[in-house]
């Protein structure tokens, strides 16, 4: 478990990093927290010719509230985001998702943006980004561009990043008023990647009907997926238990081809996805109602 040889670069500015990435094209990998990349290097599953280490770039570890968003820089550690007062006040779903990632030692090194760029389909944060409609700020040789989360995640470990580009920050919309949220998952052990997981947000209007509802699933496809079939069942309706059960069933039925592996079959994932959508929606409803 020793990586094959690679060239190592430790730029101190983002421009320098981008130049190095452009120079090495798809032979280069970006190192931030290293919690996924380093094991893949050691198992020789990833064989980049060049490693561009962002850790010496200053000013990328920010977490801040900005224009109705929570904005997270490329080097903000998961642990810092988990503990951020801005996150707690404006978008607690992010902190709740982070608490499901590994253990504190992993979160002390791992970054939020790194998890998004790595795009494991069973990871929590990409699903949160998709559910909330987060924006991905990508920088590269041709300057900056902003990509919607739903477009950013392409397939298994694949995102909309061209050679030479780096994910600079992620912008998560703050939680609107009278909105409840939930993230629930089934993992073999606490902290493992999920066999299946569900994210839900639910906004109630004055009559107690769902003016906005968002449901996303992870671990059930080659990327995190929004589930409009479930959302439609609730939109404009009072989210009572029967409606939520119907939404959960719609989510279950909408799953086309969940993966099978040594830990669970497609049938298990499909079944549990439905269970989790129901649980997430009920918890989101309780929180929305409690928020007044």
């Amino acid at each position, binding site marked *: 478990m020793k990586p094959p040889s690679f060239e190592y670069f430790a730029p101190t500015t983002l421009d320098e990093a981008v130049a190095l990435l452009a120079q090495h094209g798809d032979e280069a990998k970006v190192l931030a927290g290293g919690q996924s990349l380093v094991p893949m290097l050691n198992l020789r599953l990833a064989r980049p010719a060049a490693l561009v280490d962002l850790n010496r770039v200053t000013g990328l570890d920010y977490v801040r509230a900005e224009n109705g968003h929570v904005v997270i820089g490329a080097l903000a550690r998961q642990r810092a985001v988990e503990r951020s007062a801005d996150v707690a006040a404006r978008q607690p779903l992010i902190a709740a998702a982070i608490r499901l990632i590994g253990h504190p030692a992993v979160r002390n090194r791992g970054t939020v943006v790194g998890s998004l760029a790595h795009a494991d389909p069973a990871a929590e944060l990409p699903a949160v980004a998709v559910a909330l409609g987060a924006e991905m700020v990508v920088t590269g040789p041709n300057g900056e561009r902003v990509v919607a989360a739903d477009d950013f995640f392409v397939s298994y470990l694949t995102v909309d990043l061209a050679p030479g580009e780096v994910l600079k920050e992620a912008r998560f919309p703050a939680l609107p008023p009278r909105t409840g949220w939930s993230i629930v998952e089934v993992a*073999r052990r606490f902290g493992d990647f999920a066999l299946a997981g569900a994210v839900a947000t639910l906004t109630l209007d004055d009559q107690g009907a769902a003016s906005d509802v968002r449901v996303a699933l992870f671990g059930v496809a080659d990327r995190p997926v929004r589930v409009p079939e479930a959302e439609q069942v609730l939109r404009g309706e009072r989210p009572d238990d029967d409606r939520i059960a119907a939404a959960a069933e719609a989510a279950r039925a909408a799953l086309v081809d969940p993966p099978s592996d040594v830990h669970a079959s497609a049938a298990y994932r499909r079944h549990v996805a439905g269970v989790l959508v129901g649980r997430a929606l009920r918890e989101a409803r309780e929180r929305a109602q409690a928020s007044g």
Partner: protein
Amino acid sequence: MVQMATPRGKWIGARVKRVEDPRFLTGDARYVADLTLPRMVHAAFVRSPYGHARIKGIDASAALAAPGVIAVLTHADVASVPPLQDPIALDGLKKTPQTVLASDKVRFVGEPVAVVIAEDRYLAEDAAELVQVDYEPLPAVTDAEAAMAEGAPLLFEDLGSNVVYDQTYRFGDPDSAFQQADRTFKKRLHTNRFMASPMETRGCIGQYDRGLGELTFWSSTQMPHMLRLSLAGFLGIPEQKIRVITPEVGGGFGQKMTLYPEEVVVAFLARHLQRPVKWIEDRRENLMSATHAKEQIIELEAALTNDGTLLGLRATCIGDGGGYSFNTASALVEPQAAALMMPGLYRVANYEARVVAVVTNKTPVGAFRAVGWTAGHTARELFFDEIARELGMDPVEFRRKNMIHEDELPYTTCSGQVYDSGSYVKSLDLALQTVGYDELRARQAELRAQGRYLGIGISPYVEPTAWGSEIALQVGFPFPSHDNARVSIEPSGKVTVAVTTHSHGQGHETTLAQVAADILGVDLADVTVVFGDTAATPWGMGTYASRSAVIGGGAVTLAAQEVREKILKIAGRMLEADPADLVLADGKVSVQGSPDRSVTLAEVAVSSYFVNSVRAEGEDPTLTATRFYDPKATYSNGCIVVVAEVDPETGQVRLDRVVSVEDCGTVLNPMIVDGQIHGAVAQGIGGTLYEHLVYDDQGQLLTGTFMDYLLPTATEVPPIQVEHLETPSPVTVQGIKGMGEGGLMASPAAVAGAVLDALAPFTPKVEELPLSPERILRAIGTITD
């Protein structure tokens, strides 16, 4: 809580902190991987990517040309080394010789095929990828019953079968028992393949001194002298010219009580290259190449009367031995052990056992804590739970009715074990009282009404320990077994204890020092325990099978008592008193009733070594004694109870509590006993709910990293409450019994039993472990497609 059965000295039985821990906790301990020798080079093994294939050729030229590469060896280069095979002498057991590097065939993924030696491990791994092996893939067989079938692919064509052992043993009159039975029951359980995962993987360094003709071999092993004997035989180096050193060993659990082909190859290379050669196994290698464990297919039948009295048992235990009937103790290591202990602590007068050992295209199986017994005990206890449910009896009452009661001890089982002493019913009662059994049953009913599913698993056990010659025979592995201790008072009065039982986490530096300190009347800090170097200790077999407390403790006792006699004799002369009137305590010898007349131990020691007048003509001046111990069989016992809640929508299990009652006779150090139980229970939780070495039908290991091979962590292990009972053995020195394995023998049945008890309203059907969330949902019919 320790219920003291016998008065004792200051140290034995005391909850003393482990004297070895500071160096482990501060990172000062040095393992094989920490050692660096001048001119040292590094080995990486090329391993088979196929479960079953013929090797048609190997081209190492590209690897040899790679940067930093010193040599590449294949079977042709080590053909002079004899193949490995087990030493078990049992009629009908076929041998499956394993060359140290694969010759004509590979039989499991991970089998060593070639070895690359380079200036560092990185370069060695780079070059290992360049070794071109021309394989002709063969059909693989990865299921034991499929391997037994007519027409199955054969691993060893010359044997004509994949079955290396198939014998039926009869005890009592099982056929009559089944004929007389009011009711009979059947159960099948395929226990999962899992493995010891020591924190330190395997590893070794060989260094050969050409001038002296001597090999020094550092290895992470449990058995230094046995390794030395093996290396001598395999390499043709005289045994006395080999020194085996184990620096720190970070856990073994049985995985390191065997001879591995990699060790032989590294020792061979050290001599061949005339340079020190180091091999440190990585985790990926450990998961696919170090011995696997625990997989059996067990079928049980029971004959009962209507009132729930057991009349007889039948068992078929099929051991899936993997690619070779491995040299630890052959592929019988699982099924033979399971079959002979199947009656457990129950009255079973009539018993028939069929023991089958099979080779398959998976990693070879070796010992792992409670080898054989984990699978056998789990199958039997889950079977008894089912029978009790069918009979409408409480599982506790069914067990109590059929259990051997204390007044029946000593008890000779139908299959030949002699249970010397114990507290079987008392342990069960104490465990139930501690967990609050009646309240839990009430709570269970309450929760069920709310749609929540709480379960209680009960697993009483008897554990063979003190692996000497007698118990080895009683549990089915006839092989003489004994060990030595040398106790010395140095001229300064300090004590050195050299033992052949090896410590790789068990805390012998503390427990064996406690034994010596009590007998020699010294402070614990004045005793140093030495082990793990064949040049520094007497000859002995090593640590395995819960033997070190009994055999190590016993041998230290006997040797220390002999030294004590010498001390008293010398002191008697110095004090002009009869040795019988002397008291040895607190580092001095004094005359009974006249505490003013005393000499310190240091004065006695220095006199013995340097003052001729205190010795008789020709008397040995050294205060040292070496004694061996080969104990009679002794059996520990206990009971584990687990409380779990199951989510019937997702199949997730939450363990709430574990209560473990342990009776291992005279307790040397209750804190260390607690630690043994905590670790073994954690492994049992892993093996029941999480750990599973999964293969596809071509023999690919699908759980080859810790991402997929799921060890339980702190978040999966609930609080474990340990209660001690103390029934000293009447047959061992100091009444000590061993206790390293009971936790892993008994906890899986308690964990699985709790899950199945929780789900009883759904009448779950489980024939396979581990209990993954999906398996649970299928067992209760939530998922059917």
